[in-house]
């Protein structure tokens, strides 16, 4: 299974708010704050646990930004891995129900 065939979902232990074209996300476990840029905000918005990352990239990121699939994949992977390392996003090879607010 390719990395981009996986599913991303938000951790339940977060709070988030869209502010302008950015999204601010806080871990309620350690109060760490993350500010997501417009591209990250789209991935965050679409991280419902049932849409594969590849579809999020192709149908949302590439359509809304002037970026190639290759470049979008590289940026998305870096973004997802970073948030997953902090427990903010979860990566799964199976669809999961979204549990965050």
């Amino acid at each position, binding site marked *: 299974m390719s990395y981009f065939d996986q599913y991303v979902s938000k951790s339940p*232990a977060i*709070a988030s*708010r869209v*502010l*302008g074209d*950015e*999204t*601010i996300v*806080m871990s*309620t*476990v350690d*109060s760490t*704050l993350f*500010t997501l840029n417009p591209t990250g905000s789209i991935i965050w918005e679409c991280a419902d646990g049932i849409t594969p990352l590849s579809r999020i990239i192709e149908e949302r990121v590439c359509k809304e930004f002037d970026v190639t699939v290759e470049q979008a994949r590289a940026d998305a992977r870096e973004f997802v891995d970073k948030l997953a390392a902090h427990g903010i996003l979860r990566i799964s090879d199976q669809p999961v129900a979204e549990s965050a607010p």
Partner: protein
Amino acid sequence: MRNSSDSTSHEVVIEIGGIPVALQTTDEGFVSLLESRYGNYLKPGGASEFEFKVEVVPAGTFHRDDDVKVWLQDGEWRLERGDFRATWNPERRRGEIRHSVNPYSIDSVLRIVHTLLLAGSGGFLLHASSAVRNGNAFLFSGLSEAGKTTMARLAPQDAVLLTDEASYVRRVNNQYFAYGTPFAGELGEPGKNISAPIASLYLLKKAAENRIDPVPPAEAVRRLMRNILFFADDAALVHQVFESACAFVATVPVYQLSFFPDQRVWELIG
């Protein structure tokens, strides 16, 4: 001060942010301490919304070096530090405090209790000095050495100081108000016990010249969260504080105030 039903017990009601909290004690020395420290915030004979029984214990009763810990257990808040132990049941509106006679322990317990109260109603205590000018409140926020007390010291005569250390922010009918607090910083003086609608929040930065720049919303939330006083190890309450910070930033203009520490900076305020 008033005598409670027990003739040896006294009750002192301290109203901060419009919220009266009664402290009941049998220790007359402690009563004197409260009366001198919270003079402008006493509500003699007034009704209280919350009550605490205070027991004064000998110095050294607890482990002096313990850091502050605040957690919810069985519906009751537990507050602990090297110099005090306290419990507070928000549903029953009652609690108990044990500490030695010194002004700092009760001050800390009151700060923590008010942060818990405010978190549930969209408000917060903020590391900020604040003052009222022309009917509006202005907040000057930053961590240690940012210039909170400096801004308070430089305030012109027509500005009324609310605090040089911890600003009390309440949301009332979707508008934000700053209240005076007795929580003093380096200035060592309690603020005036008044309130006013908040016109703006300034995030302080010392600089060679005075300048005001708007702060984008996400950055404003991040910097505001850094300066909100919060002690509880409780995910639900952390979530509420985050929502409060976002709602505040959506309502109140937030600026960075780069300032050179002399009185001219106040020409930009109010």
